[in-house]
């Protein structure tokens, strides 16, 4: 069984729903019309572009192309992490902490899954490698961004208490232990929650796609379980690495809290 191809007319029908929604927004003066139009246009253009790129990649399987595309994905994720920080860490280091921790966790876990678990030949077969890396990066990115934002924001707000603990002779690691724990939890909660409710509340997107594409539900479920575990591991290790990186950057060798390493609030993001 093959997936039924969608014609432009089918998509246009779906788009007409958005036009209706836009009209409603105008009527109720929600001011969402413009944002809606831009977002819909972006999703169309970006996905069509990605489709073309994937078509090319699938036609020309080569490890060089795969490396290139994965680096582009990583760079985009790294930029997104910086944008989601209320008070980001200054300079190259801030970028490196987020991007580096995503790199070590997502790429290692993806590689492990491709080589050891899936075992397709060659291991970089794009039909497997790209969706897998994409899902891992996307979720790790959320965890890293949430965790780092929580860490820097809490350190900023509780600087007086942290310095009091330092004054009493605690090490930086002791003084920041509670905040570190909270930040890592904040980064990991979404994936833990979605593992706990998977299948009950919503069918995960990848599984839905696979079933629509004609796979047997059981095969789809097995892949979904694999993906959930990989995502959870990737997010967890990535978040822990990022939080430890932030901690190293915001305390110096003399156990001083160095908030001067942070940008002022909202410089890199305006939400």
């Amino acid at each position, binding site marked *: 069984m093959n997936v039924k191809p969608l014609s432009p007319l089918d998509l246009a029908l779906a788009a007409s729903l958005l036009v209706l929604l836009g009209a409603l927004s105008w009527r109720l003066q929600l001011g969402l019309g413009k944002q809606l139009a831009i977002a819909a246009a972006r999703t169309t253009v970006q996905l069509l572009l990605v489709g073309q790129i994937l078509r090319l990649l699938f036609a020309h399987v080569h490890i060089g192309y795969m490396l290139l595309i994965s680096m582009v994905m990583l760079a985009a994720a790294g930029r997104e992490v910086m944008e989601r920080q209320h008070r980001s860490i200054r300079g190259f280091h801030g970028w490196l902490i987020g991007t580096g921790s995503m790199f070590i966790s997502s790429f290692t876990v993806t590689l492990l899954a491709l080589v050891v678990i899936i075992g397709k030949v060659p291991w970089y077969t794009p039909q497997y490698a790209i969706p897998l890396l994409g899902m891992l990066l996307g979720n790790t990115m959320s965890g890293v961004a949430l965790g780092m934002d929580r860490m820097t924001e809490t350190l900023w707000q509780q600087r007086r*208490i*942290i*310095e*009091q*603990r330092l*004054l*009493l002779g605690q*090490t930086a690691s002791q003084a920041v232990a509670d905040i570190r724990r909270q930040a890592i939890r904040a980064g990991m909660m979404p994936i833990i929650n979605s593992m706990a409710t998977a299948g009950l509340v919503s069918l995960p997107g990848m599984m839905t796609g696979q079933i629509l594409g004609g796979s047997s539900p059981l095969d789809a479920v097995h892949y979904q379980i694999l993906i959930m575990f990989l995502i959870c591991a990737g997010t967890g290790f990535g978040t822990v690495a990022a939080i430890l990186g932030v901690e190293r950057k915001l305390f110096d060798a*003399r156990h*001083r809290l160095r908030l001067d390493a942070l940008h002022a609030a909202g410089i890199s993001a305006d939400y």
Partner: protein
Amino acid sequence: MPDLEIEHLCFHNRGPYSLRITSGECVGLQGASGAGKSLLLRAIADLDPRTGRMQLGDINADAVAAPMWRRAVGMLPAESGWWLDLVGDHFANFDTVDADILATVGFDRSVRGWQISRLSTGEKQRLAIVRLLHQQPQCLLLDEPTASLDQELVARVEDLLVTYAKTHFVPVLWVSHDPAQLARVSGRRLCMASDGLLVAAGGPNER
């Protein structure tokens, strides 16, 4: 008998500061607010990036880990910090807290189970002093230690701190807005001008 020696201490484009406080001596520090008195205490506690040599007795600040230096120099910040639910949780071992010290500042052992969220500013201030002295610092850096206390308690806290310094032979640097207080507790006084310069402000009996 530790002396506190500060040589060419520079931080935040301030300094160099050099001063020496002998063991058991209390030096008062006054000056307009915003002149940087608290910054000087922070720098001596090594909370801010700085250069220069600092020595307390045979402890050199750069030769030991920063947490150990901070335990030794014992700084009391103007506003104390509390991060757990109960008072007693902030002490390594509340059982060994000196009951006389608790009584002097108006508490007994039951304070151990008090909620931090219910403490007044003055109670926090007095408990912060108990917490600091419990660590047996070899020096005291006091930033407005009696700022939120009423008259009777001010006298008791002054007496407690001066007695601690005398019996343990520790050097004290005492920041206060109140020249009368500094005249009571300190042997000599320094004044920090608004540009951060330190000048001698006279002995105990001058105003």
